[in-house]
């Protein structure tokens, strides 16, 4: 499809401004841009057709099943969008006087209190823009806590080898050394390995629970004990909160600090890669280090209170992705305590149901009960007929199903990680399972043909090697 630049016609313009009703001001020429912009020149209809065509070459939750493991692609309620689009929210300036912002501040305060209740934490910051930004912020809190307690030698972050890449990367951004510890085959923490890894230099253990294989680690209290006895803190990566929200609280498991992904667990849309929102919650001991400002309440009046003396500072220009917060609060308000629990349980039911239907056909990474997601492997298929997880993913695309996460977690070879989420019906799951089993038969019957997938999309498999060797990252007109 042509780029918007190739649809440009000199002299066309969609934007029309009123005549300037004040005298035109001129800057001295030496201050001015040395070359004209090369932005596209299109009419409004050109623009509408272009972006509508692009949208038809994209696939969202509204289009169909999206069992992308670890990403919690649940339905994004339209009500939430409407709430976030109210002019009383979109039209307010972040630096208005606080008495003119009471609705917004109350909203943030309410959301913070609810997230604190759901996570079992004492205090919340809504500032981080995404999950990884939340991780980064939480590690800053951990760092500040240890420094403040006279423990600068605590410079190591322990992560299981099954962890998301953001964990070690966020640790490195805080100048921490990452210590990887092996997980058991079910992705659970190897207690002996953990005991051997903790010590005087341990700052924290970063851990999801349920883990990245989709199993709830029942030893969590022992894990917390081991980390705390060594003087370290326990960090909850909220990527996998969905199947336990409202049922089990990170705070009760022994975690000291958590980050959440509102764009996963709390139904806000992913927008093709963001904006998300990554609130961080912590126990009282870590609260003095939270970034400012924080919304506080006194006698029904809400205020933006700057961070205290011990605050790590601030991690964002303003207060966070406010419109995303509105959507998350709308979700919590709609579901309430019982709805949240039921959503979590049905997320687990859907994953277990799919796993039950598929596990006899693929080696499953756990034969036990899973939580929100499960991992099956194409390793056997690869050995037998050379069909890889990637091939399988591409075949699913031709059947109108978004592929699961592939090649993650790293501890499973040829991994396919499915997270159906609670908003999918039994019919959708049955249809997907039927399709997957059919594809399995096709793969075995004619692997060469199978490797041609996808064939029904606007493009076939792209040449990623050339893309990386000779990067073309911006449009250049053919003539130049």
């Amino acid at each position: 499809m042509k780029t918007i630049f190739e649809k440009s016609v000199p002299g066309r313009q969609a934007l029309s401004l009123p005549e300037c009703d004040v005298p035109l001001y001129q800057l001295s020429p030496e201050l001015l841009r040395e070359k004209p912009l090369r932005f596209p020149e299109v009419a409004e209809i050109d623009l509408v057709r272009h972006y509508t065509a692009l949208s038809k070459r994209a696939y969202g939750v509204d289009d169909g099943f999206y069992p992308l493991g670890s990403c919690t692609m649940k339905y994004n309620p339209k009500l939430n969008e409407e709430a976030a689009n109210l002019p009383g929210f979109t039209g307010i300036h972040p630096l208005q006087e606080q008495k003119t912002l009471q609705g917004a501040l109350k909203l943030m305060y309410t959301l913070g209190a609810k997230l604190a209740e759901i996570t079992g934490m004492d205090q919340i910051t809504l500032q981080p823009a995404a999950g990884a930004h939340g991780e980064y912020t939480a590690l800053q809190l951990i760092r500040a806590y240890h420094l403040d307690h006279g423990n600068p030698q605590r410079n190591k972050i322990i992560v299981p080898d099954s962890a998301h890449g953001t964990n070690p990367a966020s640790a490195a951004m805080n100048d921490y050394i990452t210590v990887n510890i092996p997980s058991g085959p079910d992705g659970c923490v190897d207690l002996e390995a953990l005991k051997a890894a903790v010590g005087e230099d341990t700052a924290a253990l970063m851990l999801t629970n349920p883990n990245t294989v989709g199993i709830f680690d029942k030893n969590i209290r022992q894990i917390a004990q081991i980390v705390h006895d060594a003087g370290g803190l326990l960090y909850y990566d909220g990527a996998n909160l969905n199947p336990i929200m409202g049922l089990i609280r990170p705070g009760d498991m022994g975690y000291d600090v958590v980050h959440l992904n509102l764009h996963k667990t709390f139904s806000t849309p992913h927008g093709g890669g963001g904006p998300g929102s990554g609130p961080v919650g912590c126990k009282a001991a870590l609260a003095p280090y939270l970034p400012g400002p924080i919304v506080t309440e006194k006698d029904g009046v809400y205020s933006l209170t700057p961070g205290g003396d011990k605050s790590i500072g601030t991690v964002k220009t303003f207060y966070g992705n406010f419109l995303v917060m509105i959507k998350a609060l709308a979700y919590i308000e709609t579901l309430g305590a019982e709805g949240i629990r039921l959503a979590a349980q049905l997320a687990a039911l859907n994953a277990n149901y799919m796993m039950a239907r598929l596990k006899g056909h693929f080696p499953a990474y756990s034969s036990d009960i899973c939580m929100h997601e499960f991992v099956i492997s194409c390793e056997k298929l690869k050995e037998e007929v050379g069909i890889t997880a990637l091939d399988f993913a591409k075949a699913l695309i031709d059947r109108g199903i978004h592929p699961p996460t592939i090649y993650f977690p790293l501890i499973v070879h040829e991994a396919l990680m499915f997270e159906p989420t609670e908003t999918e019906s039994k019919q959708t799951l049955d249809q997907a399972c039927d399709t997957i089993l059919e594809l399995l038969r096709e793969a075995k019957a004619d692997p060469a043909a199978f490797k041609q997938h996808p064939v029904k999309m606007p493009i076939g498999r792209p040449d990623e090697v050339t893309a990386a060797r000779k990067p073309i990252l911006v449009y250049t007109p053919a003539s130049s």
Partner: protein
Amino acid sequence: MSTYTPHTPSEIRSMLDTVGVKSLEDLYSGFEDLWTKNLNLPPGKSQMEVIRFFTELASQNKLFGSIFRGAGAYCHYIPSVIKSLVSREEFVTAYTPYQAEMSQGILQSIFEFQSMIADLTGMQVSNASLYDGSTALADAILMLREKKKNKVLLSSALHPRSLEVIKTYLTPLGIQIELIALEEGKTSISDLTAKLTEDVFAVAIAQTNYLGIIENAADIGQKVKANKSGFVMSVEPFACSFLKTPAACGADVVTGEGQPLGMPLSFGGPYLGFIGTTEKLTRKIPGRIVGKTHDASGKDAYVLTLQAREQHIRREKASSSICSNQAHCALTAAIYMAYAGKEGMRQVAVQSLSKAHYLAQEITRLPGFELQYKSEFFNEFVIKSQIPADIIINACAQENILAGLKLGEYQTLWCATEVNTREDIQKLIDVLKQIKA
């Protein structure tokens, strides 16, 4: 209460049978001791009640009839077509475009966004977006880190919150920060020269700066280059479309806050961090990048590329942990930039510039109001007044006007854009006159 779940009770029973457990609770057996007994949340509400709740909250915020405040968040006209296009569900409800074949639309839109940002800044490459203007600036500084140098110089006229974010990001890494003083609201070249020592790996300024003033960016760039340090510019997009490009000023990395490009004020977010840099620094860029390639049949294809830089592959050796970014805001900005086009961008810039200068002229005609600095500005300026800022702001608020931002007891930072009419400005002047009387 609605859970947005389609399951009927009989379906739940049949699914539980397939799984081989008796109840939903059984899925959580073996760790009953961890179950939460009482979750202190109210019961769910109907959709009608929820929207009422939010409408009520929204009504407790004041919407001003006219806004003369910027300071990092700008009120520009947002064409209807933008909201209509960005609301398309395929854009809203899609995940990151990992599966290229079913995500060509999103990938191409990002490629076009990158192209426009590169063109705007005059740089060679760009990425899919960063969290906001401040984090982008911190990331840019970190891109320039060198083994043997450990200091950055920051203009005192960066946005104060950006200064805080940079400090937060750099402190754990042990990087030293020094501020460059101002002269007439501009980054002082003599102070810069004095502080440019061998251990400085980066210098960052804003164009236009927090006080609205146009910096001598080219002169600063020259000094910085002569010291073999990296040069970072944080730009306001309309100023950037109009003023000498950062590339021409010698910038190595250019970042900015993209909110003015079609995003509503929204109490500070979601906004958009953008970044442009040189080809040489491509592999230091944090976050996602889209590249153009082809499929086996030779058709143009777009993919996430250079992924080996990123956290999911490089883990603790990645330059940043960023994963989700502000993709939908980048889409908004791309559509805005294409809508405005080559000429429209300039028209918005010219009108903002002209209205701000008219506003400044009208305010300073009043006795007791003067410009704080003599330097040339773009669409923001600082007023020094004999009347306290709080009184000005309150008087304006009563007339439904959001006045300039209080910077000091007698100082306010004002802004005008294409949306402020001559009539609005006259109304504001009348309010200011009355305070005097």
